[in-house]
């Protein structure tokens, strides 16, 4: 184990998949369970090489069901853990993503999105899993998902995903798309002491007084891990504050509402987005991930032609920056949403904005992303 290898401070040239791996290790991730899948394999390959250097364990599981379950197990052993995958694997992970939410287990899923449904376009881009990360597992959940748009952000937001998963005790998704995952760019890794690292809250009371699922004011309960003497029972069944299964409507009401509310009520602390030229804008482009880079260029071109257009780039797609959208919609005539799917975030925008603004979807089914010219054309349609 070499402490100097924990954070590779310096300027690097690497792809988004690899940057996610470095972000995870810098965040303190020491356990990775995964299954090879294009276009996320580079994350696993990097982690397999890097984790042993810092005393961590890489294990290749038999499938994504097992991968997701193994990282939950490792998290309960007190180790920060992660997996990486793409659409078909993400579908398999939905089962134990739900278990992670129900048992309030911190961990991170990096999902490098490719064209779907089913096997779809293994090597080509899509943004088709945005809704799946929100609603893919059964039941009501609170969710946090990041949509980075560059290898630098893959580093930054994988690290942040760990922080948020530890803070709010749930699996957090990093939804890179294939282009962001495979794009090579400059990645600046800060000094270890400059990184903000959040670790899960530990119980402050004796085991006899500890209620493992009794939340603090932030709706998050402190977490006692295996072997710490607290003898916690953790179940995917609806449970009370002791962790005991309780099968009735009242317990369900109390538990599930809290699981959703701990994200809803803390949303202002979690939500991140970038905003460009929205002051006085009549039109606003909403774009995320790789597409947001083309959208930025399209906005620049449109503004050269004196079109009053701005842009919002959600960095957390969940929770969605809905208050900001609602506020903007008071003055904005139309929202233009280019995304590499047949409409996912566009519906979210439509839900948030007031009835006097229009939402205009610019879809791509996957395989390639919009050119700036295509987005510009979409903007002009709405002028």
């Amino acid at each position, binding site marked *: 184990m070499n402490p100097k290898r924990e954070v590779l401070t310096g300027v690097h040239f690497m792809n988004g998949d690899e940057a996610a791996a470095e972000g995870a290790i810098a965040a303190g991730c020491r356990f990775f369970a995964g299954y090879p899948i294009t276009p996320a394999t580079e994350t696993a390959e990097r982690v397999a090489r890097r984790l042993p250097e810092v005393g961590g364990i890489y294990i290749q599981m038999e499938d994504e069901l097992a991968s997701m379950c193994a990282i939950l197990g490792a998290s309960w052993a007190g180790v920060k853990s992660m997996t990486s995958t793409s659409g078909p694997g993400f579908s398999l992970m939905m089962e134990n993503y739900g278990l992670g939410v129900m048992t309030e287990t911190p961990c991170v899923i990096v999902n490098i999105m490719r064209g779907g449904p089913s096997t779809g376009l293994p090597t080509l881009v899509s943004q088709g899993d945005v809704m799946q990360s929100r609603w893919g597992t059964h039941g009501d959940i609170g969710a946090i998902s990041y949509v980075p748009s560059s290898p630098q952000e893959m580093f930054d937001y994988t690290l942040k995903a760990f922080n948020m998963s530890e803070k709010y005790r749930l699996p957090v998704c990093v939804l890179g798309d294939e282009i962001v995952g495979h794009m090579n760019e400059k990645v600046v890794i800060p000094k270890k002491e400059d990184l903000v690292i959040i670790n899960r809250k530990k119980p402050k009371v004796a085991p006899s007084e500890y209620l493992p699922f009794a939340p603090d004011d932030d709706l998050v309960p402190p977490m006692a891990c295996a072997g710490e003497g607290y003898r916690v029972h*953790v179940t995917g069944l609806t449970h009370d504050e002791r962790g*005991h299964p309780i099968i009735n409507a009242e317990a369900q009401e109390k538990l599930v509402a809290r699981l959703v509310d701990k994200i809803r009520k803390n949303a202002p602390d979690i939500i991140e987005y970038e905003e460009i030229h929205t002051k006085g804008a009549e039109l606003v482009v909403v774009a995320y991930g790789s597409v947001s880079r083309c959208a930025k260029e399209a906005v620049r071109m449109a503004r050269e032609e004196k079109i009053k257009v701005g842009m919002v780039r959600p960095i957390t797609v969940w929770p969605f920056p809905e208050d900001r959208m609602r506020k903007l919609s008071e003055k904005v005539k139309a929202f233009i949403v280019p995304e590499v799917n047949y409409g996912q975030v566009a519906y979210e925008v439509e839900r948030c904005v007031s009835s006097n603004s229009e939402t205009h979807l610019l879809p791509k089914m996957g395989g390639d992303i919009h050119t700036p010219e295509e987005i510009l054309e979409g903007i002009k349609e709405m002028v």
Partner: protein
Amino acid sequence: MITKSKWDVRRSRDKFSPPYLEHDSWKLGDYGAHPMDKYIRPGRIPHIWCSACGLGIALTCFIKAMEEFGAPLDNHCIVSGIGCTGRVAGYLNVDSYHTTHGRPIPFATGLKLGNPKLTVTVFSGDGDLFAIGGNHFIHAARRNVDINVICVNNFNYGMTGGQVGPTTHMKAKTTTSPYGNFEYPFNLPHVAIASGAVYVARWTTLHARRLKDAMVEALEKKGFTFIEVISPCPTAYGRRNKLGTGLQEMRYYKEHSVIKHNADPAEAELGLGGEIIVGKFKDEERPTFLEMHEEGISKAFPKKT
């Protein structure tokens, strides 16, 4: 924007819905009266299992085995899947994890690799471990992850009312094999040995002492161990196959069990009304996943002296 109704759900529920907790526990004041109570999670007894089910015996044997093994309870972890046996985790007074259907083994793998000091035991049923979780079982055995797997085999899905499963005897009737089972069942010790388990035994719930001894051996053993516990399920399986009461099933075990240590697992198949070959079928040494990992990594990164 969605606003929440001001209607007070909880108050209305107090009025109309019966307060059926899964079960109200016995008075906590009675806790500690029994010498085994310290192994049982306070407030969780009585359990949900039917009378004459073998799970109580399997659980008691495991408690005795933990006692004999001697490791502090704080070092033990129990991981279960879904089903009747899946409820074992919740009753033991250790760190316990009741996971999704079929997934206790990968969860336990993460737990063990995350903290190698823990003694990790998977307690689950035949459907959980060998139908929906079959793939995880063979791969964990192949890797020789240092976990213990105890499979209580009652030949059907008891929790859901008695459906056909991967170990159901040929021709046996269940709710989803009303004309008899047409599928060949798994022979669990054979699967375990072929997959690489270092310790494999089978006992029935009649063989309480031998079962307890096997559990102690498994706890002491490094590597992937497997114990099959043949258990009666009079409510769901016995009734439909005219196996009689729980007591009659125990009598059947007494009359039809044949102890054959080191038996060829291929010959240990089970049939409805046939003999039950029990015993220790495998006990060998093989480096565990973590030992192999440690060895490989220390070669790649030699410690500077």
